[in-house]
């Protein structure tokens, strides 16, 4: 007898492989094991409240909205701040929220390619607040504002894109590169 079997029997002492005389409830309605569970309703409420705040807030240069049929996946845009090499460019990002948001950070990726020391070729972002420095008090708005300021103030000491990191010193050349790649991706 394997561990799998004992697990099955422990959890379903009455229903495991028993014949029911009447149609039995669908197995999908089996109770989900409870441990560190976050109530889905509260995650939904929090995401809806963030959406409201974003729509009312009207921050310049950032926007975000859930995908059509899935409030756990959002699309966002960030525009490059004035007086940075990213001025005049706009980037699309995707955010996917874990089922225990906001206790864990959403996964945030650039969908438009972004030439930046802390963004890799697949759009993954290296930003501490999306990893070990995550706080449950952060939200979509603070994430997007942080990424927006990361654009102008990269951390060049531990880069994902080493080419971008070494070019960063020469802002004029960097600006040309950003413009060239941005035109290609547009």
């Amino acid at each position, binding site marked *: 007898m394997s561990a799998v079997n004992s697990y099955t029997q422990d959890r379903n002492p009455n229903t495991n492989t028993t014949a029911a*005389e009447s149609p039995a409830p669908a197995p999908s309605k089996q109770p989900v094991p409870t441990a560190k569970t976050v109530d889905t309703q509260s995650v939904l409420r929090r995401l809806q409240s963030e959406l409201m705040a974003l729509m009312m807030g009207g921050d310049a240069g950032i926007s975000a909205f859930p995908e059509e049929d899935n409030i756990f996946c959002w699309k966002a845009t960030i525009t490059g701040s004035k007086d940075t090499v990213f001025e005049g460019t706009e980037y699309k990002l995707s955010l996917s929220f*874990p089922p225990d948001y906001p206790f864990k950070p959403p996964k945030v990726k650039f969908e438009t390619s972004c030439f930046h020391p802390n963004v890799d070729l697949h759009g993954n972002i290296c930003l501490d607040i999306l990893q070990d420095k995550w706080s449950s*008090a952060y939200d979509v708005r603070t994430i997007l504002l942080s990424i927006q300021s990361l654009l102008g103030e990269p951390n060049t000491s531990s880069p994902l894109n080493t080419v971008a990191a070494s070019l960063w010193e020469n802002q004029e050349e960097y600006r040309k590169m950003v413009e060239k790649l941005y035109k290609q991706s547009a």
Partner: protein
Amino acid sequence: MEGNYIGLFVQDMDVVMTHGARSHVEFNFLCNLSVCEYYDNILVRFNVQPSIRRSSIHIYLDRSMSHQELLEIFDQQLRDWPVLDVQELDRRHLIEAALNAAAYLLSSMPPRHNVLVFPLIIDIVSHRAVAMEEPDFGMVPTRDSSIESLNITTAKEEQSCPICLEDFDLGCQVVSMPCSHVFHEECIKMWLRYSHYCPLCRFEMPTNNC
């Protein structure tokens, strides 16, 4: 977390009965496979597999077989049952359950309805834990004893919880952290099981390591 849940269901509404000698029982097995995926004990995906396999077993009851003989027939017929990860013990349980269901239905049949077709539906639900990349994101939880000894008070002023963003109901239980930041009791306790920092000021709570 990982494992199978197997249920055998008899849809007695669909049992086909015809007049005649009680000589023939047909068991129609239908196998539904589905996979539940969990992340941190939370159901994140429920997939019904496209593969559904039918198999029929005919038994002539006038041979007056023993329970053991019936078991053997079932066992043979279901030997190549294509289900994923079904353990031998589970298979045995399935067969036993099918026979018990048949015995129950046979005993409750009106006398002149004797040829039976039993649709038996087997639902096999695989439970799997799925790992996500960097599941803990390098966060270090607060020591349990420190979570338990948090200072609980009642909400006084009109404020909202920085974690769920909802307003405090007046008089509801809230936690005031050592740094004086206030949260819903449930919200902050959940957060401190992930992290040892105050969500607002990064005040450090004790961990199991110090």
